[in-house]
């Protein structure tokens, strides 16, 4: 790879603008133009020199990260955080609904089975008895033509 020591006027202007805005760390550069400038750095000594100058300020800025330790504040913030509802891990969680439906249906069935047939049976029996009584006490002779009875 050839080392073009000096940059073109346009490249110099664009690189200077980039370094003035974003400094020398490549991860701070806009993503869309990063590859172009990295290629420029590889090719040009002047580009590397300009970047080195920008990095001096970056190194200084690194000494003031503005990240105060504030564990007391974290405690205060977490005190306001949403609370987890009480959630016991019950192994039958997935089947309790169908199971309870089945139990209810069974209980209802047993109830019907032990109560309903009694009055149903009584009603059927009494109706049959009445019908039989009516049948046995009725004189059917007038209803038949003479000679049919034989």
């Amino acid at each position, binding site marked *: 790879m050839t080392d073009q020591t000096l940059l073109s006027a346009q490249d110099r202007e664009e690189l200077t603008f980039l370094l003035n805005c974003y400094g020398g760390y490549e991860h701070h550069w806009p*993503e869309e133009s990063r590859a172009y400038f990295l290629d420029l750095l590889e090719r040009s000594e002047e580009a590397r020199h300009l970047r080195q100058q920008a990095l001096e300020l970056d190194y*200084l800025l690194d*000494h*003031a990260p503005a990240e105060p330790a*504030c564990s007391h504040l974290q405690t205060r913030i977490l005190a306001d*955080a949403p609370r987890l509802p009480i959630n016991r891990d019950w192994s039958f969680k997935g089947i309790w609904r169908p199971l309870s439906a089945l139990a209810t249906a069974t209980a209802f069935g047993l109830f019907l089975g032990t109560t309903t047939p009694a009055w149903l049976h009584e009603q059927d029996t009494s109706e049959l008895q009445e019908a039989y009584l009516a049948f046995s006490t009725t004189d059917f002779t007038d209803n038949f033509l003479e000679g049919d009875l034989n």
Partner: protein
Amino acid sequence: MSRVAQGDPLACRNLVQHHTGPLVGLAQRMTGNSQEAEDIVQEAFVRLWKQSPDWTPQARISTWLYRVVHNLAIDAIRRTKRQNTMSDEKMEFIDPAPDQQQKIQHKDLTKKVETAISQLPERQRTAITLVHHRDMSNKEAASVMEISVDALESLLARGRRSLKMSLEQHRHDLLGAQS
């Protein structure tokens, strides 16, 4: 976020541990007041907790939090009209320096750089903090500040130029101290 909305304590703790320091740092840098900065960040999280059940993933949580903190800090600045430099005793930085002498050098360096940053106009301070110290992309930082990328770049360029000038006199000391 859904785990936060469900009240998962681990998710809430992770979120708070990860973001509180950087958010307080931004608010502190903007307002120049550590107590106010803490109140702002606490308020931002209260809003997040309230919003969590209805959260729609249109933006990253971090971007949302930074935007809320940024807006609350601007409100605070407008309310108090205060742009003081930060007082050293209020800012307690994480100091990774292994021995005492390095710690002192590191603190000295931090103090000088922090003072230089605090002398910038508020918007330039914010832009530099978001892009340089919070590693935000230009689009994300512009979104937090509710400005265009062009406007952000203008703030960054002016801010860095001013910092370069104000730190120039300390440059050799500072760069020598860090090596």
